[in-house]
């Protein structure tokens, strides 16, 4: 007979316990779930990305209403539990309802600690705990001032998140350096510097005295040195306390938290507790990893299976938006301890190892945490490091004589090595998931849960994929641009902007190019990066472009060129066709060919004739089709509603509008579009870099298709209702690709690297970002929508490209 389980609190720990329970035996219990917050279980760790705008609330929901329904969970959200009658085994809700239980689970979590300063109850004084708090912070913007009390992880996340929205944020911290529980002073200093660079004011050694208000609303924070920090919102992030009130009221054994044994049972054998509300063996818990361990044990206990909760040594890979931090073990100073410290101030890298009796007992890393798992392993296994002491600080790549490739370090990890700390997923479990068919990062995340919480282990998960799949998996490794530099494409792009480099010689000088003038690989890439980064400035260097882009025509194998005028949306006129025919006759064009991009190619034109044929085509109103460009090529269309009985929208018209807006743009590689009027897809939109499929209800925008060396179906980015939105999304997507992709990567390659989900976040979900991208694209277009043929045919630009310097054939013939 089915037993009744009542759960108080829909948090991450109880939610995970519920998952385990249902997975093991969906019929074991009738579950009723109370939650004081008016919603179900969401990933609280991810509130920070929600605050900074990187994610939306919907994306961090762990259990949706459908999930609860499918699994037969009775939800009582927004309803507090007032009491529990243990004698009668009933839970009594605040409105007097009684719900009987056989087993009861406490997942009441914790309460943020509010310092009882005078004024702490003013409006605008909040903690950072739930979605409501997050929403209040998100309401702040430019022109607002916010004070955050608390320089721990949570306070800094709040500060960084709001600073990203342009809020003027001050962090007030009572201790001498930030995150003093996880970081030593030096790392705390680097962190402070990084935050100050983000525009955040940091005050350490600062004692709050009073919160000042006006009309019941917060106005400023007064420090005990008399400083007054004005603010519109005051966030207290000074710690949490297990929420034990109800447990205490009903007589359970309670210390700092609700006492539980190794089976997560409280002092009442029918009541278990998990999460931040518990105290186990004197310890309370705030990080997610032990909570998930508890959830696993709790589920087994509920199923009368054997399980035992064991506290683990905990490392923290911390993520304050944009800063890499790691700390593990014990790093207090002591007479019996030795330090090994490595600093690289230019890169903002700091590493410190604390050794005791030839064993690493603590590690702090800032700026580069790539080797953190290796160091963590040394601490956990108490490895004797006396043999590698000299090179220890440089990490695993420098042990054993020859440098190891980064994969080798991961390959060498044992199967039980923990990769994902949040979810307690080991390397072996990830390999099992991969062998079970999960051959992409997303698939591994979905099936094993590795990397699905905070995401800081995704690099390692990717490496495990690489090792397990071997050649079947393309490692997204850091490639250098070419042999002239050790920098990757991404590095170079970032440095061009950060250092405001505007010429190729300047880039090569500043970034320490190893060859004098670069090579044919890096020169065109650098030129594109400059063109993209500095629209409106004269950065374009024709001598660093491939011949096709330099002379605005495609070189053919015999040294002649092909000429393709633009036909917006693939639509032409009798006059244009006559002009093309006349030009073909006049310049003895041997081949006239219809292209796959719905236009006409004149092949076999002599280089000297190019300006003249362009002049003639220009007279008929035609311009360059840029069929030679790493840039916008064509927008193919079908006839749409104008002529077709199946057409749902004016696909031709939309294609023309898009091409009119986008022609002339340069990009990392060629970019081809299509707009098709119905899902029959006559314009072949589903294999384009960006394709639009018109449907009755609007426009489906697909991206990342390919029909060349690789054949790939484009994937849905978003569906929009209007032409204007479709154009905006197309421009924004193109700009995101232009700004982010490596030179010579088509969009599908770039998407494989950054992930479609990320692209969706940037272009589909974040409307502000979409608008900003589109605006940057349109600004750039002001300078690049110039017909290069007209420039050369009419203004004599680059005339030296088209004429021989001297001609002695005629002399000799005389």
């Amino acid at each position, binding site marked *: 007979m089915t037993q009744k389980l009542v759960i108080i609190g829909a948090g991450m720990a109880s939610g995970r316990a519920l998952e385990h329970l249902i997975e093991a035996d969906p019929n074991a219990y009738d579950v009723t779930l109370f939650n004081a917050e008016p919603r179900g279980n969401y990933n609280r760790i991810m509130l920070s990305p929600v605050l900074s705008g990187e994610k939306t609330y919907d994306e961090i929901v762990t259990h949706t209403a459908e999930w609860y329904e499918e699994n037969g969970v009775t939800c009582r959200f927004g309803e507090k539990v007032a009491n529990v009658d243990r004698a009668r085994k009933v839970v009594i809700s605040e409105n007097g309802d009684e719900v009987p239980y056989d087993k009861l689970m406490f997942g009441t979590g914790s309460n943020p600690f509010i310092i009882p300063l005078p004024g702490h109850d003013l409006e605008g004084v909040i903690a950072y705990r739930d979605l409501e708090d997050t929403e209040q912070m998100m309401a702040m913007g430019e022109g607002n001032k916010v004070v955050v009390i608390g320089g721990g992880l949570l306070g800094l996340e709040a500060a960084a998140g709001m600073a990203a929205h342009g809020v003027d944020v001050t962090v007030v911290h009572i201790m001498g350096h930030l995150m003093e529980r996880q970081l030593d002073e030096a790392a705390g200093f680097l962190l402070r510097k990084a935050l100050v660079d983000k525009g955040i004011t940091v005050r350490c050694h600062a004692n709050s005295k009073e919160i000042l208000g006006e009309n019941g609303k917060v106005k400023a924070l007064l420090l005990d040195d008399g400083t007054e920090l004005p603010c519109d919102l005051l966030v207290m992030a000074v710690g949490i306390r297990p929420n034990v009130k109800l447990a205490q009221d009903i007589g359970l054994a309670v210390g700092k938290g609700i006492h539980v044994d190794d089976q997560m049972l409280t002092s009442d054998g029918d009541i278990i507790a998990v999460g931040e509300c518990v105290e186990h063996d004197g310890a309370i818990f705030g990080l997610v990893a032990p909570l998930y361990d508890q959830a696993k044990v709790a589920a087994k206990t509920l199923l009368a299976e054997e399980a035992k909760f064991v506290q683990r040594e905990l490392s923290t890979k911390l993520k304050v938006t944009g800063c890499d931090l790691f700390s593990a073990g014990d790093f207090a100073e002591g007479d019996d301890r030795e330090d090994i410290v490595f600093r690289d101030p230019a890169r903002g890298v700091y590493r410190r190892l604390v050794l005791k009796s030839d064993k690493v007992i603590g590690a702090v890393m800032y700026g580069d945490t790539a080797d953190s798992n290796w160091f963590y392993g040394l601490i956990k296994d108490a490895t004797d490091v006396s043999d590698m002491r000299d090179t220890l600080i440089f990490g695993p790549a420098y042990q054993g004589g020859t440098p190891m490739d980064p994969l080798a370090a991961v390959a060498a990890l044992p199967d039980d090595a923990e990769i994902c700390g949040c979810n307690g997923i080991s390397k072996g479990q990830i390999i099992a998931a991969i062998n079970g068919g999960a051959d992409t990062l997303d698939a591994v995340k979905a099936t094993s849960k590795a990397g699905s919480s905070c995401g800081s282990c995704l690099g390692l998960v990717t490496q495990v994929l690489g090792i397990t799949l071997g050649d079947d998996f393309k490692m997204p490794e850091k490639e250098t641009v070419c042999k002239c530099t050790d920098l990757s494409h991404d590095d170079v792009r970032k440095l061009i902007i950060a250092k405001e480099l505007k010429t190729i010689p300047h880039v090569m000088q500043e970034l320490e190019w190893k060859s004098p003038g670069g*090579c044919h690989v890096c020169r*065109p890439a650098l030129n594109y990066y400059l063109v993209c980064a500095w629209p409106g400035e004269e950065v374009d260097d024709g*001598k660093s472009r491939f*011949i096709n882009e330099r002379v605005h025509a495609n*070189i053919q194998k015999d040294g002649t060129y092909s000429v393709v005028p633009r036909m917006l949306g693939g639509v032409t006129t009798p006059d244009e066709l006559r002009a093309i025919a006349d030009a073909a006759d006049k310049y003895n064009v041997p081949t006239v060919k219809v292209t796959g991009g719905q236009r006409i190619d004149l092949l076999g034109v002599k280089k000297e004739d190019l300006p003249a044929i362009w002049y003639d085509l220009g007279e008929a109103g035609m311009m360059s089709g840029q069929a030679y460009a790493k840039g916008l090529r064509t927008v193919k269309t079908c006839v749409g509603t104008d002529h077709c009985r199946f057409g749902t929208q004016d696909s031709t018209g939309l294609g023309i509008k898009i091409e009119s807006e986008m022609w002339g743009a340069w990009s990392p590689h060629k970019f081809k579009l299509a707009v098709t009027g119905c899902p029959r897809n006559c314009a072949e939109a589903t294999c384009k870099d960006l394709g639009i499929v018109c449907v009755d209800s609007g426009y489906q925008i697909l991206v990342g298709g390919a029909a060349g060396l690789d054949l790939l179906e484009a994937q849905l980015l978003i569906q929009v209702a209007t032409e204007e939105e479709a154009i905006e999304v197309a421009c924004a997507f193109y700009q995101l690709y232009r700004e982010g992709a490596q030179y010579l990567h088509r969009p599908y390659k770039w998407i494989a690297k950054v992930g479609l989900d990320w692209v969706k976040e940037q272009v589909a979900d974040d409307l502000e970002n979409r608008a900003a991208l589109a605006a940057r694209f349109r600004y750039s277009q002001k300078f690049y929508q110039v017909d290069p043929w007209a420039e050369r045919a009419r203004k004599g630009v680059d005339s*030296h490209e088209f004429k021989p*310097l001297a001609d*002695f054939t005629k002399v*000799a013939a005389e």
Partner: protein
Amino acid sequence: MSDFIDIGAVSDIPVQGARIVRTVQGDIAIFHTASGNVYAVDEYLPGKAGPLSNGIQHGEKVTDPMYNWVFDLATGEAQGADEGCVGTYEVKVENGRLLLSSDAIAGRVAAE
């Protein structure tokens, strides 16, 4: 001693640019490198590379636009794993004028 023929001003070729001189024997590419040096080499290595004046220049080298062979402009030798050599001709700058060895033109004409 060979004679030199004035083929134009050195400023007619942009720095890091190249232009051709037509002869009955075929085109010669004249390069003007970033360091200010000038070189004259055959525009084509028949069946293998060219037109070299259309390539990207870097240092005292040029990369063929068709197959990415890299040639040393001073020696005409293909670099790296590729084997081949384009003909080179004497060219110099005097008073801003480009002077090409008459052998490059006359000699080739005479060879007819």
